[in-house]
């Protein structure tokens, strides 16, 4: 245990950062030697390098975390602050699954689970992640084995079924935070239910970590989470400028720390840097794409395995994605965190996540984003294996088009599984959509 802890500390704080810094330096050198290609994008964000370092360090430390510190696998919407305050190393299977998709590993991992009888119709994040648990294959080298699974149903019920399967596989406790779906606003007994469950979850986590939750540490983590959400929100708001200093596609990648490392100093340091760079770009008129002629809103998760192709197609024709309901969700919710009442406010905040609210609220969010970011079009990603985010989009398309007078495309794809996407059809639909602006 002590040796493992030493190894973990070394990888987290000394060797790991040095290795990552070297890797980044050599990547940069290789890139600078390559001839610059004609690109429809603006200059790359300097922070991208820092982002890569941060996330690589996180996954590198993760390789040595089990046996050294308590490890929790958590859903993206879980109130992770108390786990952090108890010293848990947190792994986000959704973030890892997105990484697998970007690196074109999802189909292979899905096939592993499909052989075990999992249907191809299930969420492709879940399939990739269970595939990784069963095959131990991962692009990050190794994921630490969990001591605890922490699942919150505020993004979907799917995560509950998914984590039940993980609990069976790893034979570890599963804490469930069941958040009643919100119509309008949640009633007091619903919030109380979430608060009560948080109390139960804290007890389980304390037992597993062998520590007592310190009020002071909890408050500090909540302060950091609040600050992180605000910083992330300010970064996103830079997209309101014309031209936008970055693209929504950049945002999909730069959201990784607020999802996976929220409530930590390093995340907030990172977003301070990113914000400063974006503000600087705004002041110098640097745009995310070379020539921004149209501004779009994106709804739903990205098509991770096609981000490059879709963003390039759009940028070549002067279309910039200036905001997305997905990245925005991480700024909106966290802002309501109250460090003076960290668990009580967490119950309210985490119940009011966009995916846990009705379609009136979703329409309101899209309407507001389209107006505030002065968008003249929207792409609603109809995501085959994410039903909770996709149901209702057929009507939302009509409503957005008629109420705001903007052009709206419903793009059929999937967030992680390339086998569920027809490139040819997708490109044709995208091209027709862009032509309609002429």
């Amino acid at each position, binding site marked *: 245990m002590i040796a493992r802890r030493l190894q973990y500390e070394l990888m987290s704080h000394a060797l790991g950062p040095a290795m990552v810094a070297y890797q980044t330096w050599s990547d940069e050198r290789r890139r600078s030697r390559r001839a610059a290609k004609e690109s429809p994008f603006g200059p790359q964000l300097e922070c991208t390098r820092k982002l890569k370092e941060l996330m690589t360090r996180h996954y590198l430390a993760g390789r040595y975390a089990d046996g050294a510190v308590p490890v929790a696998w958590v859903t993206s919407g879980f109130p992770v602050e108390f786990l952090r305050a108890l010293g848990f190393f947190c792994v986000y299977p959704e973030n890892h699954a997105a990484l697998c998709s970007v690196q074109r590993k999802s189909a292979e991992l899905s096939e592993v689970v499909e052989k*075990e009888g999992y*249907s191809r*119709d299930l969420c492709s994040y879940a399939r990739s992640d269970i595939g990784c648990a069963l095959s131990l294959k991962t692009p990050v080298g190794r994921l630490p084995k969990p001591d605890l699974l922490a699942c919150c149903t505020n993004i979907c019920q799917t995560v509950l079924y998914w984590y039940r399967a993980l609990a069976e596989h790893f034979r570890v406790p599963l804490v469930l935070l069941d958040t009643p779906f919100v119509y309008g606003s949640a009633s007091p007994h*619903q919030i109380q239910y979430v608060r009560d469950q948080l109390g139960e979850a804290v007890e389980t986590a304390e037992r597993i970590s062998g520590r007592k939750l310190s009020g002071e540490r909890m408050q500090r983590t909540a302060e950091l989470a609040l600050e992180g959400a605000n910083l992330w929100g300010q970064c996103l708001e830079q997209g309101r400028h014309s031209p936008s200093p970055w693209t929504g596609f950049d945002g999909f990648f730069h959201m990784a720390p607020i999802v996976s490392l929220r409530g930590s100093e390093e995340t907030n340091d990172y977003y301070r840097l990113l914000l400063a760079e974006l503000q600087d770009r705004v002041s110098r008129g640097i745009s995310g794409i070379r020539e921004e002629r149209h501004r779009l809103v994106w709804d739903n998760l990205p098509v991770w395995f096609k981000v490059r192709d879709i963003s390039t197609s759009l940028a070549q024709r002067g279309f910039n994605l200036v905001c997305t309901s997905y990245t925005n969700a991480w700024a909106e919710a966290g802002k309501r965190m109250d460090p003076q009442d960290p668990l009580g406010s967490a119950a309210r905040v985490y119940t009011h996540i966009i995916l846990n609210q009705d379609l009136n609220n979703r329409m309101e969010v899209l309407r507001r984003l389209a107006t505030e970011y002065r968008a003249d079009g929207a792409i609603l990603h109809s995501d085959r294996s994410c039903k909770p985010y*996709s*149901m209702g989009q*057929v*009507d939302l398309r009509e409503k957005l088009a008629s109420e705001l007078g903007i052009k709206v495309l419903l793009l059929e794809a999937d967030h992680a599984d390339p086998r569920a996407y027809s490139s040819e059809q997708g490109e044709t639909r995208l091209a027709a959509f862009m032509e309609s602006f002429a």
Partner: protein
Amino acid sequence: MRTTYLQSQKDRGRRVLAVLPIYFPRPLLTALDVVAAELWGPPGPPRGPAAARVQTYVCAVARNALAFLSSGGADVADGVLFPHTCDSIQGLATIAKDLGGWKKRSFTLLHPKGPSRQSARTYLLAELRGLARELGEWTGRSLEPKRLSEAIELHAEIDSLRAELLTRRARLALSDRALYQLLRRGEFLWPEDHLAELRDARKSLNGQKVQTGVPLMATGYVPEPGSLFEVLEQAGAFIAADDYAAIGRRLPTREVVRHSDPFETLVDGWFALPPCPTRSADHASRLDHLERLLERSGARGVLIHQQKFCEPELFDVPAIRKMLTERKTPLLYLEGELERELSGQAVTRIEAFAEMLSTQGRAA
């Protein structure tokens, strides 16, 4: 037939509430003179253009329900109740309420997920009281605790008769088709009418075994299409154990504790139900339950009968398969026939499965 019956109930001064799957507090509705008319789709092709408002990768239950509600198919109902069974029904509820599809009153039951924890029990109690208040205002009736207690007893008797017919299936001189038709009439009949039919059916129970076919266990969502039972019968098999969400999973596995506050009894009844992926949080109890059903019924094979795109059920399939493989219990997996009749291929697979089991049985 359903509509005529429900209209006759309205003529008697009762309200009709269309209810989406799966779990809801029946006694509460009965005590308020509300007839529940369950909406499992309905099966068959969508009955109206609104199905296109839901993507084709969402289950037929949710798509068909939106089409049915929007096209006036459920107009005999005065309101609709959406229990929060899964993401698809949650999505359907907000589409119908917020974006159009159902203009009359709608209610939700945001029931808890996970095991029987103190937080879940307290919450469910508050949620049920809230629903009772809303239904009371809607019907203009005040809910008497005594009436609720009586309704609880009435439904307990219904459940126990349903359970008896299912557990003593081999001694029941009814075809699967007839039995399931009877059980599914409980989805819209006023409870006393259903009770009378069940008592009548009970007379067909014999002292000894009358079903001579291969006993099977069925686990899945809803026994649709009904023609499945004829195919099974012709193939020489019958359902000896039932774990359909629509049928067996709604019957308590233990005696429900009676409390002086009938709402507390409803809460206990909720947690007395068999494990279901749409409610419960652990695999082990589900698998234990299925193994007990298998052993008690003497089923020689298992039919896993799922609806396409049904996430809660589909996620459990690998664990069920694994358990059955380890027990060396043969299984047949059937998926997605709510919108249409069984395909020729499905019929052939069922026949081959039953034949294989009966050959094995003779050899043993």
